[in-house]
């Protein structure tokens, strides 16, 4: 393993929801709860997990879009939440983000050329004709027709918008790319094109990816390591191959099991589906957070919270990991 590029320590993000008008009721959403994570240079760390478990929140914390409730994020050893101007600028140049929602992150009043070109102009890398050329290049890379340069975001289809976002994130040749479901809106062909592109870039420039996805086949294809989150907590972390072959945490195995298979003949295969009450981050159950749905639940799970323990290079937080 190489050097640690970015690292989170005891990272917490709680959302305090004051409720409505004059209402005293307060909800605390523990979106990210005590997460320690390391991303090593040149690797792809994939993050999977139930939707709403805090993946986007974690990603946003890593890029200093949200102020953490507690904990710190170290980028190349420096806490990103109190970088000085020059370093902050450098950080913003080296770390890029692909948003989960492709449309909301595009200014509806800007043309595509300006959107993709914005990081270039911001960091004074290209202007005028140069910018145009670079934007064309980027658009070609992500499979967008360069003639659409002068269109506005709303004139594109969902997948095309997603690609605009990707092109923008690639514009600066970042070191670390945080991708929040970058390919979910793309058809398989474009998806493989983008995935290939990301892989090529990694091979060529040694990029590091933090890759959030629900599509396990994509994760399997992309990731070196996989991190599984459940309700704000990391429940399993390990080598991609191993996790797919032999999940340790029951939740992980459910995930693997639930993935759809592109073969209609297998549609009636026996599948384990999660039962039981869906736990909520507003009111997480005591003990193991997964216990309400876990088929292997024991008494201890209801009371004691399992620690993230080491299983020969892999980590898992379960009292009875499936070894």
């Amino acid at each position: 393993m190489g050097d640690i590029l970015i690292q989170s320590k005891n990272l917490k993000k709680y959302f305090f929801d004051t409720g409505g008008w004059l209402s005293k009721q307060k909800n605390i959403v523990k979106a990210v709860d005590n997460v320690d994570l390391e991303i090593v240079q040149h690797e792809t760390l994939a993050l999977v997990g139930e939707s709403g478990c805090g993946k986007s929140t974690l990603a946003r914390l890593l890029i200093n879009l949200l102020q953490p409730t507690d904990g710190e994020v170290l980028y190349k050893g420096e806490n990103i939440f109190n970088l000085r101007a020059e370093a902050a600028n450098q950080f913003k140049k080296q770390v890029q983000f692909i948003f989960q929602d492709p449309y909301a992150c595009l200014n509806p009043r800007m043309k595509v050329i300006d959107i993709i070109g914005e990081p270039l102009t911001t960091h004074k890398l290209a202007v005028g004709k140069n910018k145009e050329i670079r934007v064309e290049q980027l658009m070609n890379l992500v499979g967008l027709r360069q003639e659409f340069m002068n269109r506005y975001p709303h004139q594109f289809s969902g997948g095309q918008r997603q690609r605009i976002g990707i092109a923008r994130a690639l514009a600066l040749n970042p070191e670390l790319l945080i991708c929040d479901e970058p390919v979910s809106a793309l058809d398989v062909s474009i998806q493989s094109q983008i995935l290939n592109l990301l892989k090529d870039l990694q091979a060529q420039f040694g990029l590091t990816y933090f890759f959030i996805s629900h599509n396990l086949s994509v994760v399997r294809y992309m990731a070196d390591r996989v991190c599984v989150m459940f309700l704000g907590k990391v429940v399993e972390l390990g080598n991609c191959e191993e996790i797919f072959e032999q999940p340790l945490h029951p939740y992980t195995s459910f995930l693997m099991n639930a993935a759809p298979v592109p073969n209609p003949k297998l549609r009636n295969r026996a599948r384990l589906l999660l039962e039981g009450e869906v736990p909520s981050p507003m009111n997480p159950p005591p003990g193991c957070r997964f216990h309400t749905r876990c088929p292997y639940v024991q008494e201890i799970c209801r009371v004691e919270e399992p620690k993230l323990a080491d299983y020969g290079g892999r980590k898992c937080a379960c009292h009875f990991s499936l070894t």
Partner: protein
Amino acid sequence: MVLFIIKRIISSIPILLGVTLLIFILLHIVPGDPVTLMMNDHVDPDTIARVRAQMHLDEPIYIQYFNFVWDALHGDFGVSYKMNRPVATLLWDAFPNTLVLATAAMVFSWVVGVPAGILSVVKKYSVIDYFFMGSALLGVSMPVFWSGLLLQYIFAFTLGWLPVSGFDNILCLIMPAVVLGWGAAGTIARLTRSSLLEVMGNDYIRTARAKGLSAIAVLFNHALKNSFLPVVTVMAIQVASMLSGSVITETIFSIPGIGRIAVNAIQTRDLPLLQGSILFTTILVILGNLAADMMYFFLDPRIKNK
């Protein structure tokens, strides 16, 4: 929320001090001496000097200001030079009238402005749109002293439906409210229109339509609230301008209100009265803007209330 209101009110105190200081300084910069103004043309300078001394106008300005603030803190806003009555009484009598007038005008401008804006969106670039745009602009580009006179001529003099002026029943309120609220209605209508058109392009409007809401329902239930932020802001601004800008309306319709008092006060350099009336409107404007800021939270949950 309650905390927020209290904080805002406390933080308004410096503004009030600022306003009074501003008036104080301005009135001392402006040429013209209140005593000279009070006096008959053939009064000799000795008398003037004597009266000035009696009114403490010969003291240094900061002492005068300090005295004013000190007295004001004790609820004493002084006695009007011109009207000889305590400022507080004068304002207390005049204020309800202005408030009633401004409220009526506001209600008029909302009741007319918002629907007009909506209608001109529904029928964009149609005769109705042009009609509302025309009337809105008529309200903005017609001097109040004209529109007042014209309404009086038509509705009071020719048709005899409404009283010419006065302020003792609800009928009397109609014309002044229209005159004062017309321009505001125009602005509201135009702003509602543009803001609505802006919002109509959003995806959630499509979602609402997909639910089967009619175009009108979509407009009212989904677009309006989203588009209301600038409109509410402007409404709050208009509260200010209606309270302070009602002079001409009050004059034309013989309404004994604050606006007239304030303009008279500045013309006669009646410092205590001017201070008092502006302080009054300032408080109202602050409250109006506070209301608007609170409306923001209500209108858009994304605005963080901190």
